[in-house]
């Protein structure tokens, strides 16, 4: 395996609110390698977006605060820094696209100008050169009639087209990492598929790493090489997509899989939701954050936060069931249950 392109270690992020301090991210580690796709999965409010926004310096501070941790790109720390090795981190080294393309583009600026902007700022292109490049980028993301479209404003574009324009903008300076924060959530299904295909193709062409944030397991299965499952500000299971899907080692991952709607005509299972709701991050539980909802909860789960247990090379789970002294036979549970 190649050395990680981007490595995040022990990231902690907090927010001061009127209700107290929210501990949104509580020790997140992950690695992304060049040309590979890491999917960060989890339900709303589990800290997926905060993690990547903290990395990009997009968290308003105050009220936000990065308590500790590091994020290294090619071994160089990027947290709290704007440039590394003479290149701007945001926009040049790491591109980012967001969930809602309708509101993520400036309504009073033409699409072409918005795509050309990073080139002018980071690459020092002249306006006409940047514009010409913007047209090429629009063609690259398969927007027809680029010349005409570039002169239009966001309100003249459809949602899918806007997301394509966002992608064109994010990759304009050839970033080494592209972060896509729920890129298809606001789009309808056929458009979703097109956008995901586009991202995949661009990744194959440019060899950039992709961090895909989503709560859609279907998207994960389609796109990801590696998966990190997040719950209550922590990564509870991490591994290759096959490991996490077919050899799930955390009860939460199993729960997510069971809660996924099934389109298989031969099966008539009812959807099984995960009972309860995520813990209050104002005062996170001392033990495992998932213990209150976990069907296999033990006494130790409430008392002590689980460590990382390596269940296979490059596949770990934060669950006491993997401890040698666990009364349950973890292997039996995870081999039966939701893993078939």
């Amino acid at each position: 395996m190649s050395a990680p392109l981007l490595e995040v270690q022990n990231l902690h992020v907090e927010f001061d609110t009127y209700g107290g301090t929210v501990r949104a991210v509580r020790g997140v580690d992950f690695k992304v390698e060049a040309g590979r796709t890491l999917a960060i999965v989890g339900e709303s409010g589990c800290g997926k977006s905060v993690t990547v926004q903290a990395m990009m310096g997009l968290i308003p501070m105050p009220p936000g605060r990065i308590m500790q941790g590091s994020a290294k790109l090619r071994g160089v720390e990027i947290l709290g820094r704007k440039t590394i090795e003479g290149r701007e981190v945001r926009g040049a080294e790491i591109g980012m696209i967001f969930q809602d393309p309708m509101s993520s583009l400036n309504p009073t600026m033409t699409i072409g100008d918005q795509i050309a902007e990073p080139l002018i700022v980071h690459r020092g292109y002249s306006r006409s050169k940047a514009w010409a490049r913007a047209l090429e980028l629009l063609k690259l993301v398969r927007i027809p009639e680029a010349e005409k479209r570039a002169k239009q404003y966001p309100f003249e574009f459809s949602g899918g087209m806007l997301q394509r324009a966002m992608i064109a903008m994010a990759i304009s300076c050839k970033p080494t990492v592209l972060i896509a924060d729920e890129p298809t959530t606001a789009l309808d299904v056929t458009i979703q598929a097109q956008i995901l295909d586009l991202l995949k193709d661009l990744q194959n062409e440019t060899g950039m790493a992709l961090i895909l944030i989503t709560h859609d397991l279907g998207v994960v299965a389609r796109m990801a090489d590696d998966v990190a499952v997040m719950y209550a500000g922590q990564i509870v299971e991490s591994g290759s997509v096959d490991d996490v899907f077919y050899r799930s080692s955390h009860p939460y991952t199993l729960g997510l899989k069971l809660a996924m709607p099934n389109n298989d005509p031969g099966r008539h299972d009812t959807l099984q939701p995960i009972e309860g709701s995520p813990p209050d991050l104002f005062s996170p539980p001392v033990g495992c954050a998932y213990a209150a909802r976990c069907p296999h909860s033990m006494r130790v789960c409430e008392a002590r936060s689980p460590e990382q247990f390596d269940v296979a090379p490059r596949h770990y789970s934060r669950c006491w069931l993997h401890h040698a002294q666990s009364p349950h036979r973890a292997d039996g549970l995870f081999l039966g249950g939701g893993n078939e």
Partner: protein
Amino acid sequence: MWQYTLKRLLQGVITVWFIATATFLAMHSVPGDPISGERAATEAIRANLAARYGLDKPLGEQYVIYIGNFLKGDFGISFTQQNRQVNDIIREHFPVSATLGILAVLFAALGGVLWGALTAIYRNRLPDTIIMFLVILGISVPSFVFAALGQLALVNINNFFGVSILPVAGWGTVSHMIVPALVLGMGTMAYLTRLMRSSMLEIIHSDYVRTAKAKGLPAERIFLKHQLRNAILPVVTVLGPAIAAITTGGFVVELVFAIPGLGRYFVQAVQQLDYTVIMGTTVFYGSFLVFMVILVDLLYGWIDPRVRVQ
């Protein structure tokens, strides 16, 4: 675009006609008329005068005559001032009011946008607290107080330096205009500051500003290209009514600073029921404001592409 402009202008003409009609009816429903105040006049003299000025004719007929004269661009002769055409009054005094008004509006708009943006950026910190305190003052203190205070301050400053740095009253040069324009624009500036602050706060937290940050743009560029233009839209929207408030509200400031503007004639005419001057100044002010509002709307289309298409 041209079609839109033409449509707006046509609507403007109808608005002005409506203003003229409403003023005419309101004016005639006030008891008395311009000649009823004459003390020495007997019934016979009054009847003769009324006949001479057409005041004895039925209201409908008078209305037709007035409108007919308006269309010819003739506002008639003042009842109360010796030998003065209403047209002359407007021609002589309106440029003064307009200069003062435009200066005040410019001052209010620039100040409002600047202070508003500043308070939003320094939200809940010292500059914000200070400016917002002043804004509350600016909104709640009436303009004649500011006018008097401004004048007093000028007197003291001039005394302190021993030379006349800025004239205390009167009209003629740019130095005469500065303080009255500041005073006249103060209330509107305070209002625009608040508006700009809230709109800017909304935009600072908008998704596209986050996108601009994720693109790695420098803060000045984000401010100028992504925040300011979008935040300014609500300010531009109220600029039309703001121009109305400033130009018609100029009377008090004109009085305090002894500025020969149109406001004084406008108010005097109403007090004296000087029919022709009331009609002339009202219709003139009305058309001016309608025209300004149309101009502002066209400006809005220029700033916001979403308005432009229809």
